[in-house]
């Protein structure tokens, strides 16, 4: 009888193991990791309940300088796909990928998704650059998430990647992407309308992280609080900006939350301009918890700042 029992158990065992993987494989959502929160939101909009998405970088910090923790290495090591801005934005990303030790996730690996692909880059250096010009971006301005137009291209990149890796659900992803793009079209019209009066006006930005945002609205940005990218404002530069702002009637100085505000406040006070907070990441301030509310907030801020 013992023998029979064990036979039965064996059968049961075999049954569970021959069916279980299929069941689990079908139900288990993918584990996707992104560098920025805005990418995570976009991926989630297209993958919906088929994916679990986590972002590494907190939007409260400058995206150039993130200090990954052990849990970040663990997250990346288990990731099915890794979405990032490519270019040279996330300086900590390559060492992080290396620490996680999955070659397919490395730059140009099959599971690494470079969201800058297909995007028309701004500020691409025309001549040879040297480090004496500051933290120069060799490939062009990498803060491309700041224009909602670029979300169309990113959404397509994400869709292709999800479809390619999970053809069984291709139709599902297509449908989600389509719904997102339709809503995006509506919102872009709404935002353009809200900010129609901004076109042609000039602003000053703390860092050169606003180029795509400005391009979308037709704003002019020639001067930055940083004398060179990555270098904090100096007294002489502030003096120069003071004269510049007066001469060009600049009304708004824009910056995200993570730079120190003193220099911008000082300049604003001296010339009677406003400091406008333009977020760089989803969740940087309360009320910017997803893609649409993030842009809602930014466009509302700039629209009011330039009234």
């Amino acid at each position, binding site marked *: 009888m013992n023998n029979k029992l064990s036979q039965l158990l064996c059968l049961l065992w075999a049954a569970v193991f021959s069916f279980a993987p299929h069941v689990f494989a079908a139900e288990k959502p993918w584990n996707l990791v992104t560098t920025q929160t805005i990418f995570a939101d976009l991926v989630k909009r297209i993958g919906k309940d088929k994916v679990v998405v986590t972002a590494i970088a907190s939007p409260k910090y400058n995206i150039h300088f993130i200090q990954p923790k052990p849990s970040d290495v663990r997250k990346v090591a288990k990731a099915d796909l890794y979405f990032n801005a490519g270019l040279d934005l996330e300086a900590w990303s390559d060492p992080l990928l*290396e620490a996680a030790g999955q070659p397919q996730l490395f730059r140009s690996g099959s599971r690494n998704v470079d969201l800058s692909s297909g995007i028309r880059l701004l500020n691409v250096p025309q001549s040879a650059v040297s480090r004496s010009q500051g933290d120069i971006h060799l490939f062009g301005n990498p803060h491309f998430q700041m224009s909602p137009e670029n979300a169309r291209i990113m959404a397509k990149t994400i869709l292709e990647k999800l479809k390619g890796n999970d053809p069984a659900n291709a139709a599902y992803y297509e449908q989600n992407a389509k719904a997102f793009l339709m809503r995006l079209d509506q919102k872009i019209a709404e935002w353009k309308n809200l900010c129609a009066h901004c076109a042609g006006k000039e602003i000053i930005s703390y860092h050169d992280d606003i180029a795509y945002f400005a391009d979308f609205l037709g704003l002019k940005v020639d001067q930055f609080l940083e004398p*060179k990218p990555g270098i904090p404002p100096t007294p002489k530069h502030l003096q120069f900006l003071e004269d510049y702002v007066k001469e060009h009637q600049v009304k708004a100085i824009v910056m995200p939350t993570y730079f120190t505000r003193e220099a911008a406040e000082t300049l604003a006070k001296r010339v009677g301009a406003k400091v406008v907070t333009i977020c760089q990441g989803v969740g940087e301030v309360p009320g910017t918890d997803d893609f649409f509310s993030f842009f809602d907030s930014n466009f509302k801020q700039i629209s009011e700042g330039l009234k």
Partner: protein
Amino acid sequence: MMQEFFHIMFLPLVACLILAGIYAYLGFHVIERQVIFVDLALAQIAVLGASCALILGHELDSVFSYWLSLGFTIAGAAIFSLTRFKKQRVPQEAIIGIVYAVSAAMLIIVLSRSGEGDEHIKQALVGNILLVTLPEVIRIFIICCVIGILHFFFRHQFFMISKSPDEAFNKGLNVRMWDFLFYVTFGFIVTSSVRTAGVLLVFSFLVVPSVCAMLFSDHIRTRLLLGWGIGLLASILGMAISYYLDFPTGASVVCAFGLILLALTIIKKLLRAY
């Protein structure tokens, strides 16, 4: 779980153990000479060298940058060995403090005039031991071995100039030359490890094991062995804290050092009470 711990924390742990090995030994000298902050000063000088290289158009991780910061460090070594006298009127700590402040200020000036954003430079002083790579570990290991062997061969001279400089002077030892050699080798290690581990962690590796060991023994050998044991313990404890509580790795190891020092002080008091 354990397997994952090793997958993620193995290289950082190995790097910590190598650094613990060399710094526990160097810490002994540094404490005897009462030049506790010399590593901070040398690290600052090295970073100044690296940022000068940047202005000349060489990336932070280029060979030129490495050699220039090493050159600066050697100049620093020369300053420290030339300011040590038989009858010390100005304490060496004061000189070290001045060198630190001036090189930090020069760094600000250099960066303000041209060059890289200062956040990259700050990064070079902070380091992130969690993301250390295998080539980096191997490089640090080789450098530590070479310098360890050098110090082993000349241990009598090095220990004598650190522990009893008067005796060394009287015996006719070229104290200045040995001092210079000491600071050059020390600077070599600091320059090579600060970018990986950061100044805070390097400082802790240097000072805490020696201080802990001093609580319990006066003998060189015992103090060295105790120091290594404590470095090992703090590294493992720090890795565990960082992994299980998900804290930044370098800072966790520094705090582990603090905890161990505290625990040992209490143990010492209890031992004395009974």
